[in-house]
């Protein structure tokens, strides 16, 4: 009850605030940036006579007898046919048009964000697993390298890392924006995931390792069959937080001109002038992705809880 009241008051406050600055809401402008419909004209490729018109429900096939011999079949939407049988056409005359649906910039931006987060998530997980294992290794060199990596990444801002990765490493290795973006995000996430994995492994009681080793299992077999599966379960909640952060942090790659959701939003604003609506929409889209992610983890956690 109280919650509902607070939410209503909050909404009323928002409404009042926008009234004061005299902002006119134009939500109807937003959907076209998700999907839009366009009609593309179909034109005669050369001078020709219309040989026949075959209408099949929504689609119509117009057969042209070309001047320089030969036939050409054109497909157009039935309600757009602009010619009659026997008519003579010049090259470039419109026969009809075909309508089709396209993804708008927001949808494409959302896709880029998901794609970017997914690939950098995989990269981060791989890097984090290797680094996490190195952090607990007995080998001094491996341990040192892993600590250095984690400290370097955690001690510098992601934005700066993205610039360095794109302008320095990207130039040296001739990487595309997308690869540089995925690389920077993956390396950033990897450092945090390494710490999560290290803590997860160290939280498994020593007795588990001893039991596995006393059965004759090697270090690797023990890690793969006994320690990691248990550590995975324990690290799920912090891991979920890390992946959610990754999705949100991916908005920073718009600074190296990757057209992700955030950059698409900025572009849409320049053409629609619906600043507030678009930013709210972009925020909602991020929210949808991140809550789907936490739902997935929640489901995984419940499935893994059967052995408790």
């Amino acid at each position, binding site marked *: 009850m109280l919650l509902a009241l607070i939410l209503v008051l909050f909404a009323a406050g928002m409404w009042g605030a926008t009234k004061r600055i005299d902002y006119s809401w134009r939500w109807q402008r937003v959907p076209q940036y998700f999907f839009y419909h366009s009609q593309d004209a179909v034109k005669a490729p050369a001078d020709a006579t219309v040989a026949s018109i075959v209408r099949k429900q929504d689609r119509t096939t117009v057969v042209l007898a070309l001047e320089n011999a030969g036939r050409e079949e054109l497909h157009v939407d039935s309600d757009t046919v602009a010619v009659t049988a026997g008519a003579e056409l010049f090259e470039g005359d419109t026969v009809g048009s075909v309508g089709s649906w396209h993804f708008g910039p927001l949808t494409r931006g959302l896709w880029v964000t998901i794609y970017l987060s997914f690939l950098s998530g995989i990269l981060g997980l791989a890097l984090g697993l290797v680094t996490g294992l190195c952090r607990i290794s007995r080998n001094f060199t491996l341990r040192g390298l892993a600590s250095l990596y984690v400290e370097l990444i955690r001690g510098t801002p992601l934005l700066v890392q993205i610039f360095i990765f794109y302008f320095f490493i990207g130039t040296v290795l001739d990487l595309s924006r997308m690869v540089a973006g995925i690389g920077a995000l993956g390396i950033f996430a990897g450092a945090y995931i390494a710490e999560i994995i290290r803590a997860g492994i160290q939280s498994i009681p020593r007795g*588990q390792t*001893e039991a596995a080793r*006393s*059965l*004759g299992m090697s270090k690797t077999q023990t890690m793969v069959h006994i320690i990691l599966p*248990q550590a995975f379960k324990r690290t799920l909640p912090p891991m979920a937080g890390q992946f959610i952060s990754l999705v949100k942090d991916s908005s920073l790659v718009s600074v190296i001109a990757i057209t992700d959701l955030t950059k698409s939003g900025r572009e849409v604003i320049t053409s629609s002038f619906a600043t507030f609506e678009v930013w709210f929409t972009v925020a909602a889209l991020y929210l949808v992705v991140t809550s789907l992610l936490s739902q997935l983890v929640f489901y995984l956690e419940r499935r893994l809880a059967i*052995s408790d």
Partner: protein
Amino acid sequence: MIKARNVEKIFTGRGQVVRAVDDVSTDVRKGEVVVIIGPSGSGKSTFLRCLNGLETFDAGHIEIDGMDLADRKTDLNRVRAEVGMVFQQFNLFPHKTVLENITLAQQVVRRRDRAAAEEKARKLLKKVGIAEKESEYPSRLSGGQQQRVAIARALAMDPKIMLFDEPTSALDPEMVGEVLDVMKQLAREGMTMVVVTHEMGFAREVADRVLFMDSGKLLEEGDPEHFFTSPREDRTKLFLSQVL
């Protein structure tokens, strides 16, 4: 089967040096049941853990079925596959079912196929008396049941020697019997066993030989009859008067 010569294990920490195992020598013949008793901190568990390489030792030699544990070239995994170990805290794998607990090492270490491993596991579960629990997770079992699964898990590797590290110490009193019964049956079948325990009744009934350890030293050894009725050392007498 087991040959231990002048084994020494030193723990250092916080500026202190502790001789956890101090110059221990003993032999265990095939089929023999040896029980190690002694006060807490006497090094008996540490010595036991040296026998399958879970604990390294600083001096001396241990030979298990002809394999020298002090030799760096010895593959410890191979030694451990031949030496089953049962822990005080059971240490079952909580993310695997009872059946999977018993089949895993058979498959990855002994390279048995799944069907053979499961058949073996079911046979052993029947032997330890919990055949009906095969698809349960360990957390759903009582302590006594968990410990019996742990014994079955070790036996599944067809070990030549079984080591028991205070297998009943973490159990509620009413469950001690069911675990000891399984161990007695094993002893009757001729398994070579080394058991660290506080169960004097078990030592008396099943042991072929009893070792008494205190402050890392092997103070006295003998057959249980002699050991419990007329111990030689004063320290042994004191200990026995406290626990019996």
